[in-house]
């Protein structure tokens, strides 16, 4: 697909990270050294084998890394050649055919559901499907610029999404951008005003008054995955690229670039950074991951690459600091319940009571206070603001897993 406005950068490898799909147990249907084409399935969900995960590039499976209890940590593919699988379009774009096509092409895995942020069940039916066409993370690209560039694909993808579910489809946009695409589908545009967390799914769920519980699910999908779906309908193969912003204090020239899915960030940022030690992050500074070691790849749901200069460490402590600062290394500093926590909390959530429930691991209270509406990224601003310095994202995931386990044993 042509992308005249954005630089295209290539990468020698493409990596798929297991932990980007919480709740999924992978079955590996390829092996190290196998040759694969772009669009070919390499993994599937062990419990729901119809959910496939496809390779975004053609090449060779170079490394499969396993973690605890044989879970998949990462699967790395070395890029080689340009072979692509084409999918046959269904004769009638109805619900079952569309779901079949998305499963087959690996695009189903770009859907997420609340609660838990898992991949939704292929025969499930949500309360609503949200298309997230707004991104308010720090230094995130403007969704309107990218959607306008690929407006045909976006419109087409939107149309097909509407046939996927009987529930209402909401298109969450930003008030400040002007979108230029043809919306002839039944998707209902809803507008949200900045700042962050206006672009997060939990904000949209709250504003639309959608119920979330163990039986009421809401599905959501990012705008670039809608473009990918439109591309699949149009050409027979999914769009295996992402337009991302390259920005941050360590970047020479901030701009939008087109990169392959799962691309190695080391390759992408080569020659783009200023001198000095820097940290390259896939995603935003609030909820991305450091691109080091086996995690050196663009995250599946990320629309940005941030590179920050590392702060100079090793400053001697001043006497002023000795007078006031406590060293809480190895233990948690107290959570001081100041009111700025409430001002950055996801809407409808009581920040301090929820954080306290997370800190003591009280799954029942956390659930009552709306933990099911949230995933890790929703708590990033609270972790950023809280005086205790605790990262609440992993605590929330622990609680969500606990709730799920309890629910399964009932």
């Amino acid at each position, binding site marked *: 697909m042509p992308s005249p406005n954005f630089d295209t950068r290539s990468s020698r490898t493409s990596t798929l990270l297991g932990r980007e799909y919480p709740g999924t147990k992978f079955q590996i249907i390829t092996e190290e050294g196998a040759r694969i084409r772009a669009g070919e399935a390499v993994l599937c969900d062990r419990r729901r084998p119809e959910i496939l995960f496809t390779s975004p590039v053609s090449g060779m499976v170079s490394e499969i890394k396993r973690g605890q209890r044989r879970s998949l940590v990462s699967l790395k593919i070395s890029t080689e050649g340009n072979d692509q699988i084409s999918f046959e379009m269904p004769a009638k774009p109805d619900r079952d055919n569309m779901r079949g096509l998305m499963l087959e092409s690996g695009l189903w895995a770009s859907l997420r559901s609340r609660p838990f942020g898992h991949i939704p069940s292929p025969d499930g039916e949500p309360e609503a499907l949200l298309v997230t066409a707004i991104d308010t993370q720090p230094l995130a690209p403007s969704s309107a610029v990218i959607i306008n560039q690929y407006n045909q694909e976006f419109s087409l993808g939107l149309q097909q999404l509407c046939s996927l579910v009987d529930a209402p489809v909401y298109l969450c946009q930003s008030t400040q951008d002007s979108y230029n695409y043809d919306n002839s589908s039944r998707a209902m545009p809803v507008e949200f005003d900045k700042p962050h967390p206006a672009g997060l799914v939990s904000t949209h769920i709250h504003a639309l008054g959608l119920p979330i*519980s163990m039986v009421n699910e809401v599905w959501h999908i990012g705008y670039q995955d809608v473009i990918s779906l439109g591309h699949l309908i149009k050409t027979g193969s999914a769009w295996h690229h992402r337009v991302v912003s390259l920005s941050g204090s360590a970047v020479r020239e901030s701009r939008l670039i087109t990169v392959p899915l799962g691309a190695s960030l080391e390759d992408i940022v080569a020659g783009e950074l200023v001198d000095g030690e820097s940290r390259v992050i896939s995603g935003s500074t609030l909820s991305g991951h450091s691109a080091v070691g086996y995690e050196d790849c663009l995250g599946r749901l990320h629309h940005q690459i941030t590179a*920050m200069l590392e702060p100079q460490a090793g400053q001697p402590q001043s006497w002023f600091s000795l007078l*006031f600062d406590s060293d809480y290394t190895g*233990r948690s500093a107290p959570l001081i319940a100041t009111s700025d926590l409430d001002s950055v909390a996801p809407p409808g959530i009581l920040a301090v009571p929820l954080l306290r429930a997370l800190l003591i691991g009280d799954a029942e209270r956390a659930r009552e206070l709306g933990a099911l509406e949230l995933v*890790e990224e929703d708590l990033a601003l609270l972790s950023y603001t809280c005086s205790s310095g605790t990262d609440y994202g992993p605590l929330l995931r622990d609680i969500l897993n606990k709730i799920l386990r309890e629910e399964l044993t009932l």
Partner: protein
Amino acid sequence: MTLINATTVHIHSGNSIGRIRRLRLLAIIPVLIAAVINTGYQYLLAVQANGGFLAGEWRGGLVQFFNIDYSSPGGASIVIAGLVHVIPVFAIAMLAGGFCERLFADNRNRPFDKGILYTALLFTLLMPPGVAVFHIIFGMAFAIIVAQGIFGGEGRAFLNPALVGVAIVQISFPAALTSHPLWTGLNGYAGSKELALYHQQNLEGVAWSGLDWWQAFLGSSQGLMGSTSVLAVLLGAMVLLYGRIASWRLLAGQLLGVILAASVFNLLGGGIRDLPWYWHLVMGSYAFAAVFIATDPSSSAATNAGRWAQGILLGILLVLMRVLNDSHPDSVIPVLLLVSMTAPLIDHIVMWFNIRRRELNRG
């Protein structure tokens, strides 16, 4: 292999307990300055009225040691007389509190809470100028052990430690605290002169003694060391609000509560019921406690709705207790104890509404 968290927040706002301690200290500095100046000034005035220093009083001895002429108090002598009152109380409070905190920190194997600097300052500023050494040690030790140490340290207690320390001293030694021969205005209770006069002779009595509202606002009268100057307290409030440590909702709620309750009592009329709301704000140690103790995030409600509710409750209870209970003319400390203890209950009710809204939405 490097271990990396599932998701990581790569930046932090810089908000930490150290930052909160710094800002709190900055906020309390104007009050500290006002305390030194006013206490020194009032002391020299009292000595002047007495016609000489009291025999056998160590503070008088110290002031005499600096060769201060009480008949015409100037700038330097006022400051020295003030420091003679403020520094020993603070130093003893720091020593007593620091010792207890050290014991706790070592035994519990946790960092030493440097916030006791602020606790000791709050405690000092809520003491009457003539407080005895033993009372300081007793109050501060009680504060650090019972109201902070056993709960796991700073930021984890449910009552402000300084508040508990002051309360235990006021409850245990009411007479000793309030019957110092030089501090006549404090007769009967530990509050401020305006309130004492008002109880005896209504607003006319206050006016007759030469005190007007502006004087009470600026803090030129006898009272607890730090609580007389509302102006200095307001400067501190601005720092706390700017630093987002105090909640504006809690302060606005209190103002609302005081205006509401005082207006109702004004309608009923008679005696102290006539006291208008703007006098309530500047009398006694209310302003100081409202800004520095009631807004302590650890001991106040932790939800926005709860902060409004707690503020309004505090304002109403304060006026109610001042007007209806003769034995507590100032009544700030008992009301604060009571209201701080309601914080978990208020939060619980707010949570109940939140949970119920979620349930109703689910159908």
